[in-house]
């Protein structure tokens, strides 16, 4: 299949940040303007891609003009586009924030190319249609994420991110062995073709199941699914603020996306209720444990990191519900709710981390108990934390409120009412940890004279949180339309 488009947004989403990374590497003096330029260009490519898919349905591109078996395919269906759009908007916000964040020119020069490479890896992951290409993208993502996370150079940051790097490598090797088994069994690497082969050939159930276990456990390690989350809190909490935002909101999400993708598309014929239930139990444990640890955290960024563990857990609760719900509107609702929660978390958590970073630079620390004055001095930032926090709790009108509503509805409808208890417990704990922070914002300290003090840093955080709260919660209808756009099979 040849692409007739002279400028295919599918390709540009990946090559533009790569080019940006190359140029910011080569011309470190101009890293900031070049980086912002690349960010804008990439983001517009992603938006164009979104518009294209919205108008014409799922896109598919086989690179090099070869047979789809032989070449690498890119694909953009509704699911991929939804996540890619979120990731690119969040990444743009992070870029604007980061352009003023780094005081040390050496760090700033190191940040931009790595950040753009990470961005390329994210887009590459969301749009990939090839199992091995996904592996390379995963590695690019893991390496850039760890390098960025260690950028502060503090002892904690370096050791936490070294651990993150190693764990990530372990995860990708496990994934790669799964790919090797699948290639041995089915002789192709294209997602769609392998999916067809799996569906057609039930004699190889054991092989497929082994590959599923290897790949999903590798990815669960990268997605920090309980109890494999141990590496996440220190790594995310010690990174520079824009990086923390990207790690928590996007990088982890990419692995979750991949699990969902494999679970629903590739291995759909062999994933049973029992396996889904197992993952969901881990997710439930993550919700409770992550929220509890967030509540006990002493530092703001650590709190946010543990909250990520919990929020990732929610996404896995959907699997057993999807397993028992036949195709139709109820299943569409579940899938949309799953994606909606992922998107809301992406926006909210990035907003939260950006705001937390600003609090940290302003106060010189991020110990929650001593933040009162700072929180009061920065009303817009505190407001952003409040908005993001209410999205994390799942209060209306945030997207996660709708997500939780549909999750509970699905749970009751399919008789798995116990997930309702998990959701409510998680929400209660989340309100406790969010308001533990917010209650510091009301003190007797002197009052600010204006709402916004540092626009370049505060406005992105505020906007990202606003999207999570208002836009996704009140106008999530288009997501259903988007998710209905599925890619056809292999070719």
């Amino acid at each position: 299949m040849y692409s007739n488009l002279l400028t295919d947004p599918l390709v540009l989403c990946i090559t533009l940040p790569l080019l940006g990374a190359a140029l910011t590497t080569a011309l470190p003096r101009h890293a900031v303007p070049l980086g912002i330029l690349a960010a804008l260009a990439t983001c517009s490519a992603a938006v164009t891609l979104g518009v294209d898919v919205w108008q014409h349905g799922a896109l598919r591109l086989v690179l090099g003009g070869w047979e789809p078996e032989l070449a690498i395919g890119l694909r953009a269906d509704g699911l991929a586009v939804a996540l890619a759009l979120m990731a690119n908007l969040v990444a743009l916000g992070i870029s604007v924030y980061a352009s003023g964040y780094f005081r040390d020119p050496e760090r700033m020069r190191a940040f931009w190319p790595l950040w753009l490479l990470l961005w390329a890896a994210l887009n590459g992951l969301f749009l990939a249609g090839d199992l091995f290409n996904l592996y390379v993208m995963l590695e690019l993502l893991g390496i850039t994420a760890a390098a960025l996370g260690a950028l502060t150079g503090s002892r904690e940051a370096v050791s936490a991110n070294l651990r993150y790097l190693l764990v990530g490598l372990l995860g990708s090797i496990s994934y790669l062995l799964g790919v090797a088994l699948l290639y041995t069994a089915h002789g192709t690497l294209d997602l769609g073709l392998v999916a067809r082969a799996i569906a057609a050939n039930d004699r190889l159930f054991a092989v497929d199941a082994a590959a599923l276990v290897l790949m999903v456990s590798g990815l669960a390690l990268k997605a920090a699914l309980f109890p494999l989350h141990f590496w996440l809190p220190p790594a995310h909490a010690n990174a520079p603020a824009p990086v923390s935002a990207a790690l928590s909101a996007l990088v982890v999400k990419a692995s979750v996306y991949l699990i969902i993708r494999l679970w629903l598309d590739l291995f759909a014929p062999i994933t049973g209720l029992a396996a889904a239930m197992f993952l969901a139990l881990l997710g439930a444990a993550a919700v409770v444990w992550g929220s509890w640890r967030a509540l006990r955290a002493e530092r703001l960024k650590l709190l946010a990191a543990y909250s990520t563990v919990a929020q990732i857990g929610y996404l896995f609760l959907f699997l057993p519900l999807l397993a028992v719900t036949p195709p139709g509107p109820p299943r569409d609702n579940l899938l949309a709710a799953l994606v909606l929660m992922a998107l809301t978390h992406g926006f909210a958590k990035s907003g939260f981390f950006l705001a937390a970073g600003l609090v940290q630079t302003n106060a010189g620390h991020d110990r929650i108990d001593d933040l009162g004055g700072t929180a009061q001095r920065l009303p817009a930032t505190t407001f952003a934390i409040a908005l993001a926090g209410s999205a994390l709790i799942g209060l209306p009108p945030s997207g996660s409120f709708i997500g939780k509503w549909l999750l509970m509805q699905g749970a009751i409808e399919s008789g798995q009412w116990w997930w309702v208890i998990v959701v409510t417990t998680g929400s209660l704990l989340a309100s406790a940890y969010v308001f533990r922070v917010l209650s510091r914002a009301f003190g007797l300290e002197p009052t600010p004279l204006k709402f916004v003090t540092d626009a370049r840093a505060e406005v992105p955080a505020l906007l990202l949180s606003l999207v999570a709260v208002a836009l996704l919660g009140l106008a999530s209808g288009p997501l259903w339309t988007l998710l209905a756009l599925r890619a056809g099979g292999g070719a």
Partner: protein
Amino acid sequence: MTAQFLYGGAGLILFVLGLWSFLVHAPLLRKLIALNIMGGGVFHVLIAVAYRGDGVTPDPVPHALVLTGIVVAVSATALALVLGARLQDEQRQG
């Protein structure tokens, strides 16, 4: 088929051994070596898959995958080593 299975099977055993070593040993260097052994094991499996019998040109695709995989492994190892060295430097100074 037997040669293929033995070669690939050896790769799987390497994978498991590497995993064991990774989980059991704490020092960074041993963990890194373990990861590389695991990676080597997976590459073995892929190389074995490429084999199509004596005198027949092997499947080039797994070969290419392995080459790519090696570069990726080298990159990750290098970064991990430098991060580890950085920690060691600080330990020495502090």
